[in-house]
Every structure is written in C-alpha cells, then in structure tokens.
C-alpha cells in the first residue's frame, strides 16, 4: 500500500523542485545565522549556485531517463508529468533565475535593500514554475501558480522604502489575486464536469461533452481570463507596466522572462496537446485568441511609442511579445508551438539582457530608468551600449540576431495555417516596434551624456551580460542546435 502511495519515480519527478525548496529554506536560515552584515550576503549566491546546480543535474537525469525509457515520467498518480516539454521550460527558468541572481547583489546594495530572503524568493518562485511546467493536475498547477505569484508579489515590493515599488506590489497583488480567482473558478467548473482534477481524465470527459456545451464554455472563458492575465495579454495587461516599472529592475527582468515563460507553459498545457482539456474546443477559442493577440500587439506597440521611461517602454514591448507568442498558439500547428518555444528561448536572453543594462544603470543615487539616464551611453561605456544595441535589434526581430528566429517561426506558422491577415498585421507591428526600440538606440548613440557617474558594474553583471549577448548572437547566427532543442521539447 505504501508503495503505491509513494514510489521512486514520484521522488525522481520532483527532485529539482525539492532542491530549490531546500536551498531556499537553507538560505533563510543561513542568512539569519551567519551573515548579519549586508556586504557579506553576496556569498548567499553560493547557495543559489548549488541549488541550480542540483536542479540542473536533476533535469539532466530526467532527460536521460526519458531518452532511455521513452515517453514520459509520471509521478504522484499523474499529478506530475515530466516530459521534454517541461524539461525545456525548466532549463529556461533555471537560466533566468541564475542570471537574475548573479546580477542582483550590486543592484540591491545600491538600493540599500540587500536581504537574504531575496535569493530564497527567487528559488521559491522557480519552484512554483517547476510545477507549472510539470503539473498535469489542476491542484498541482494552481499551487504552482500561487507559489510563483506569491513570491513575485513580495519581490516586486522588495524596495520597501520606495513608493513606486510598494504601489506596484499592491497593484500586482490585487489584480493577481483577482485573476487567480477567475482561474480557480474555471478549475472548479472543470472539476464539476469531470469529477476529477487530473487533466487526463478531464480531457476525455470534455471531449465527450456535446458541442456547444455552455458549461465547458464557462470553464474555458474563466480559465482563459486567468491565464491571459498571467501572460499580460490585452485587455488584461493593466498590471504589467506598473508592476514592471515599480519593481526592482532585477525582479522586472525575472518577472518578464521567467514568469512569462512559466505562464506560457501553463497555457500550452491547457490548450495544446494530448493533455489539454481545451484542445477539443479549439475552434471556439482560436478566433478569440487571434483577436486578443492582435489587441495585445496593438496595445503593446502603440503604448510603447511614447514612453519616456525605458523600463516602462520595455514593459510594453514585452506585452507585445506576448501577443506574438500567442499567435503561435492561434496558428495551432506544430510549427507554431515550436515557434513559441523558440520565441521564449530567444526572448529569455534578449529581454534579460536589455533589462540587465538597466540594472547596471541603477547607481547609488540615480534610479537610472529614464530615457535621459541612458543617453550618451556610447560615450560613457561603449560595451554596455553595443550590447544594448544587440538586445534591442534582437527584440525588434532583425537578423542576424536571435529575435528574428522567434518572429520567423511565428510568421511561418501563420502562413502555414493560411492566416494571411494575421501574418500581415504581425509583420507591420514588427516594423512599428523598430520606432520605439530605436528611440533607445538614438538616446544611447546620438544624444549627449547627462551625467558622468559610471555604470554600476560587477563581476556577476559582466558575466551575465556576456552570456546573454553571446547567446543572442549565437542563436541568431548558428541556430541549428537551438532549433533542434526547441523542436525536441514538443516530443511528448
């Protein structure tokens, strides 16, 4: 009896998450006991490194197991499913968490809020993301989502003395809780239909329901609202610019990349593939999602044009990127889903990179996220300026940078699905996006320098920026292995 309750494969399927949770708790303890002096707290990064090391090791073990045994690794009676899909996303979370962690200490020191629990929050959030990518049970998914969201609520408000940060956290919390309510309502309806929280069971029952079943629609609509909120798709994007702007920039980077990736993993679990309850009613939601994607791109791109705050501008740009990724789901073919995977992968590096440059602009006395703060960057620190240029070009989707490949896949999937109108709209917005990305470029390369205070650089910052910059270029110039990786993530 006890065997079937807890098996070896159960353990194996959540090892990475256990590692994150364990080390997260360890950081809380050690911070309290060993590092009373804030300047020593960067040594907590060792814990993060170990946590990510073990997580990565666990992921590799899982990968090998799946490659050897084929199929998927299920744990906890189908509540956890480890497959190539989840492993791919978990690598992305890992990279994002690691990069964000190593650049944070300097930023937090400058902001005067360097506390140990920051690192454990990063790990806890990642732990939540793990369950978003692997969960195949409504309860697991919901718990994962809330674990991630709660960690982020705290992290967004981490600059306790800054009004903006508090406001952002409160806004994010209220709207986030509201959307979670919607989501959980949808889940309850699904449970009501199926009598089970397991996706496998739900899929069968939903598919057997009659067409035009209002209960399924109710579940679909409420769940979609909750999910679209999480990926910050219009018209549920209101929280994003404020939360992104107010949060510490490192957290913004993490939020915009990892949280978005996790939400997309979640979205794909529910809307695409064999385990997706809503795949059966694709005809209903595809046109709605198409409209939402277009609206998202419109709002993101048009609102970004006039921003004078770079962080806010990038927030809107990340909204528009969510619109592009959503188009991959609208196209609905395999290429579209591969496209989402590729897009998220390249987006991780380019968007993290762009935010990292903003992180380095935060000096002791200078907040550093206005357009004026970045002006003349080419004179001040050419390295940062050139890297930022690469990230912006990539965000704009111009070859030979990685961002082009993401857009390429999305466009191709739309062409394949014969959605020509959507394709044209998407491409035209890609051209519009140039305008605001190049406002930043103009500011960096043409405008005069406003102040001479050097960039807040550190070893971690240089390392992280180099990695993001090199990856953005390498994926753009030699994408083959990365495309293979993204493609393999769909093999379930």
């Amino acid at each position, binding site marked *: 009896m006890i065997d079937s309750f807890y098996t070896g494969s159960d353990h194996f399927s959540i090892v990475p998450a256990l590692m994150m949770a364990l080390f997260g708790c360890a950081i809380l303890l050690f911070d309290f006991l060993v590092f009373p002096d804030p300047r020593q707290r960067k040594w907590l990064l060792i814990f993060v490194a170990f946590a990510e090391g073990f997580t990565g090791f666990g992921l590799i073990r899982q990968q090998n197991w799946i490659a050897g045994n084929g199929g998927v690794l299920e744990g906890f009676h189908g509540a956890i499913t480890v497959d190539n899909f989840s492993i791919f996303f978990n690598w992305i979370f890992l990279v994002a968490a690691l990069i964000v962690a190593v650049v944070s200490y300097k930023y937090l020191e400058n902001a005067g809020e360097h506390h140990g629990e920051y690192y454990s929050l990063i790990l806890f959030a990642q732990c939540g993301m793990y369950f978003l990518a692997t969960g195949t049970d409504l309860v697991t998914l919901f718990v994962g989502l809330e674990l991630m969201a709660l960690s982020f609520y705290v992290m967004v408000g981490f600059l306790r003395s800054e009004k903006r940060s508090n406001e952002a956290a409160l806004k994010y919390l209220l709207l986030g809780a509201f959307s979670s309510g919607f989501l959980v309502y949808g889940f309850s309806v699904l449970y009501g239909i199926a009598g089970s929280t397991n996706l496998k069971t739900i899929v069968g029952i939903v598919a057997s329901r009659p067409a035009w079943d209002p209960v399924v629609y109710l579940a679909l609509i409420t769940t979609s609202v909750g999910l679209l909120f999480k990926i910050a798709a219009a018209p549920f994007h209101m929280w994003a610019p404020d939360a992104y702007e107010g949060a510490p920039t490192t957290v913004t980077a993490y939020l915009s990349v990892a949280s978005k990736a996790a939400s997309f993993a979640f979205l794909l679990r529910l809307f695409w593939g064999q385990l997706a309850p809503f795949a059966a009613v694709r005809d209903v939601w595809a046109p709605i999602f198409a409209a939402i994607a277009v609206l998202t791109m419109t709002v993101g791109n048009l609102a970004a044009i006039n921003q004078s705050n770079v962080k806010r501008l990038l927030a809107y740009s990340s909204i528009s990127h969510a619109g592009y990724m959503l188009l991959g789901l609208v196209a609905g073919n395999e290429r579209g889903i591969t496209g989402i995977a590729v897009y998220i992968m390249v987006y991780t590096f380019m968007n993290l990179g762009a935010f990292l440059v903003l992180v380095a602009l935060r000096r002791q006395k200078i907040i550093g996220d206005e357009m004026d703060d970045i002006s003349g960057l080419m004179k001040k620190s050419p390295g940062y300026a050139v890297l930022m240029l690469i990230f912006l070009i990539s965000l704009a989707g111009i*070859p030979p940078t990685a961002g082009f490949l993401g857009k390429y896949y999305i466009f191709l999937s739309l062409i394949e699905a014969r959605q020509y109108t959507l394709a*044209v709209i998407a491409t035209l917005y890609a*051209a519009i996006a140039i305008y605001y990305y*190049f406002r930043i*470029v103009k500011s960096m390369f*043409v405008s005069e320098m406003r102040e001479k205070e050097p960039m807040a650089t550190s070893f971690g910052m240089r390392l992280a920026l180099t990695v993001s910059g090199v990856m953005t270029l390498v994926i753009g110039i030699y994408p083959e292995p990365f*495309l293979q990786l993204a493609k393999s993530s769909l093999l379930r």
Partner: protein
Amino acid sequence: MDQHLLSIVLLTPLAGLLILLFLPSKSKNLIRVWANLAALAGFLVSLPLVSRFQNGVPGFQFEERFDWIPTLGAHYHLGIDGISLLLVMLTTLMGVIAMLCSWSGIQDRVKEYYAMFLLLQTGMIGVFISLDFFLFYVFWELVLVPMYFIIGVWGGPRKLYAAIKFFLYTLAGSVLMLLGILTLYFQHFQQFGFYTFEISELMKTTNMSLSMQEWVFWAFFIGFAIKVPMFPFHTWLPDAHVEAPTAGSVILAAVLLKMGTYGFLRFSLPLLPRASADQTIVRILAILSIVGIIYGALVCLMQKDWKKLVAYSSVSHLGFCTLGIFSMNPNGIAGSVLQQVNHGISTGMLFMVIGVIYERRHTREISEYGGLAHVMPKFAIVFMIAMLSSAGLPLLNGFVGEFTILQGAFEANRTWAAFAVSGVILGAAYLLWLYQRTMLGQVTNGKNLTIPDMNFREVAMFLPLIAWAVWIGVYPKPFFDVLRQPVTEIVERVHPGYFNGSQTQPALARNAAAPLTASPTRAASSAASATRDASSAAPLTASPTRDDRTATPRPALARNTAAPLAAQAGGAR
C-alpha cells in the same frame, strides 16, 4: 582558392572591421588609413572575380554551398552571374571611394563611422551574392542598421527624422517581403515535401496558382519597390540623401538602391514568372516607372537645394531601371542592369561633387553659388563630366544605358518609350540648368571667391569613376557580353520561347535594322545568340518557324503583343 573567392570577398570588410575594433579610437588617422586599406583590400580581392568570370556559362559561377540551418532548409549558398558580378564590382569600388571621400568630412566618432561602413559593405556584398533566400534576407536586413547609424549619427540637421524614416520604410517593406518568401517556401514544401530556401529549388515550384503568384509578387514588390524606390514609395529617399553624410549618400545612391532593382531581377522575375508576365502587373509597374521618371525630373526642376536635386534625379533614373526590367526583353533588362551601374557611377560622382563643395562652404543652397568655374577649374571639369554622364551624353555611360532601356521599352510598348524619352530631355534640362546656376557666369557671392580647388585626394577619388564612365560610354561591349547569358535566362524564364520558334524572324529583322543604334556590338551579339537559339530549337519547332520565315516579317509591336499571350499559354500548360 577559386571555390572560396566569394567568401573571401564577403568577409574581407568584416575582417577589416574586426581589426578596426582593436585600434585605439584616439588615433584617428590610423583608423582612417586602416579603413581605407580594408576597403581597398576588399576591392582588390574582388578583382579576380572579373578575370576568372566566364561569359556565356549558364547558371552561377564561383558557387559555394554549405548547410547552415538544416532545420529550416537554409544554406550558406553563394554564387554570381553576370548581373551580380557587375553589382559586386560596383559595391567594392564604391566602398573604396566612399571611404576616401569621408577622410576629412568625418571628424568625430571616426572609429564607429568606419566600423559601420565596413559592416555595411559586408551586408551589401552579401545581398548581391546570396543564392539562398534566408541568407539574402539576413544580409538585406543587416544593411539597415549601419545605414541608420550613418545617417542618424553623422548626418545633417534633420538626421534623426531621416534615419528613422529610412529604417521604418524599408523595414516595413522587407517584413512584408518576408511573408512572400515564406509563402513561396511553404508552397515549395507542399509540392516537394522538404523545406528549402535555395533559389534554384524554389524556382522549381509549379503548384502556385496565378493569383497566389500575384500575391507573392506584390509582397516582393513592396519590399523591392521601397528600396528602389519606385514612385509612390520614394518619399524616404530625398530625406535620407539630404541628411546623410557625403559618403552615406554616395553608397546609398550607388549601391543600396540597386538592392531593390537587383531583387526584382533575381527574385521577382525568375521565381514568379507568370505573375511577372501578367499584363496588368507589367502595365502597372511600367506606369509607375514612367511616373517616377517624369515626376522625379519635374521635381528636380523645382529644387533649390543642390543635394535634394540630385536625390530626386535618382528617383527619375531608377524609374528608367525599373522600366527596363518590366519591358521584359533582353534590351530592356540588359540596359537596366547597365543603367544601374551607370547610375551608381554618375550619381555617386554628383554626390561627391556636392560633398566637396559642402565641406568648403557648408551650404547646399544653389542660390549661394554661381560662377564657381572661375574659382575652381578642376572642380568644374569633374562636375561637368559627372553631370554629362548623368544627363546621358553620348560617349559617356549614361547614354548607353538609357538608350538600351528606351530601345527595350520601345519594343515592349511605343507609348512607354515616348513618355520615358521626355525624362531624358527633362534630365538634361535640370542638370544643365544646375550647372549653369552654380558654375557659370560671374561669381556673385563674395564668399565663393576664396574657395580652394580640389586637392589630390579629391581628384583621386573621382578618377576611377570617370575612367569607368568613359569605358562604358565608349566600349560597352564587355558589359553586354557579361550580361547576355543571365539576361537571356531571365527573359526565357518569364517568356518561355522568346528566343526561338515564331519569335525568330522579327527579332532578326529588328536586329538587322539596328546598326543605327548606339550599340551595334550589342545588336550583333544578340542577333548571334538569337540565331544560335533558333538553330538549336529548329528541329523541335520546325514547321512554325518555316511558316514564319515565309511570312512577311511582322512589326515589332505585333510580336510583343503576341509574346505575353504565348507566355500565358505556356503557364497554362
């Protein structure tokens, strides 16, 4: 060596750029010398292309092919034919000259400037030698970023506006073009079951309906026409030209615009032959070209700004190039390619002339000048040659190109030719008037009395272009020889059976009547090729040929109305 020649040509500027990055940005002269050497090296390594190029060999030469992204079916595939050969040589030569003419004009951020130029050079060469659509697109877009910086950082007072306008316009065009490419790519997959971006493979796609070909054609059209720029899409050009630094304008006019016309020749026509031969489309494009020719010329007459005048003259001259392309006959297309080179030479020179005078007086208002010939005799001579070459004086390059294009247009449609000729006249008018207002008469403005004449460097940068202009003007045969094979292939693709069968007789008759034309060598050679084609095709189409020979030679007009019909019939098969 031979099999990597194109890679070497492509990567030389890039290698120069990489070393340039390690030079100290304080030592400006070192950077200048190095950049000039890199550009010169780029030109020198491209010279073997000329000597080893074999005329009359079908397909592409110096081909290189490696898998690049197998998942997408993208290859690193390079190769050139006669058309790309001329444009590559133009690019590498203009690269040297543009570097040379920035020597004293650019004083701040010298290192970044030359870095951008070398990057631009790589992108432009890449565009002309890629045989894979994905690779082509990468280079096509790669060009935008350095050009944005060249205009936006080192440009005139409204540089930022001009730079972003240039960027937005061309990017909007090229992303729509990308959709066309993807449609084609996907159609090819549906027919053959594998994905590839290779042009030779995509050309095999036959499963596209005419309407789909037309959609793709328009998608390509937007991308290329904005780049050319053709008439309604030209508004970015005057801004970009006026605001760009001299070398930027030179490269923009001489090479960058040719990417559009090259795109039509390399992609639109061969990949979408049925849409390209469609009467409606051809008519629309020819009319747009003619409107561009006349409108550009008329606007030139109105200009008070020297540089803007030359910028609009580009619109007019490129109208000739596109008109030649859409005449869809050997004369039109060969003339168009030659005119693209000519425009690069003569407009490049005109922009350099402006650069020389602008560095001295810092104004481009035509009314500020007058009687400069007295003060600057060397300058007056150079400007005169540039002006006459642009205006199409016989024995200089412009004449040969324009004449051949008009010949082609005349064969296609007499009305087009009649309207286009007015562009030649207007062209002579605005250029001569410009010369008169700036150079002739008495010096009216006291500031002009003390302008120094051109120095050795400035003369040196004009000399190769003048030499090339005279060469083309006096002895264009080598150029037409290089172009014959690729042009034949394009025409054959768009109008199958153009060179044989029932078409032989009138073509011969036309060419026999050609000795009064400017390029007798060309006429003779094309007649020879026509005969060769006819003899090879004779066994296949014996009876119609014989019938046609007994019949009275039909006038050219009749043949040309018949040709598209034949093409359509061929497409329907």
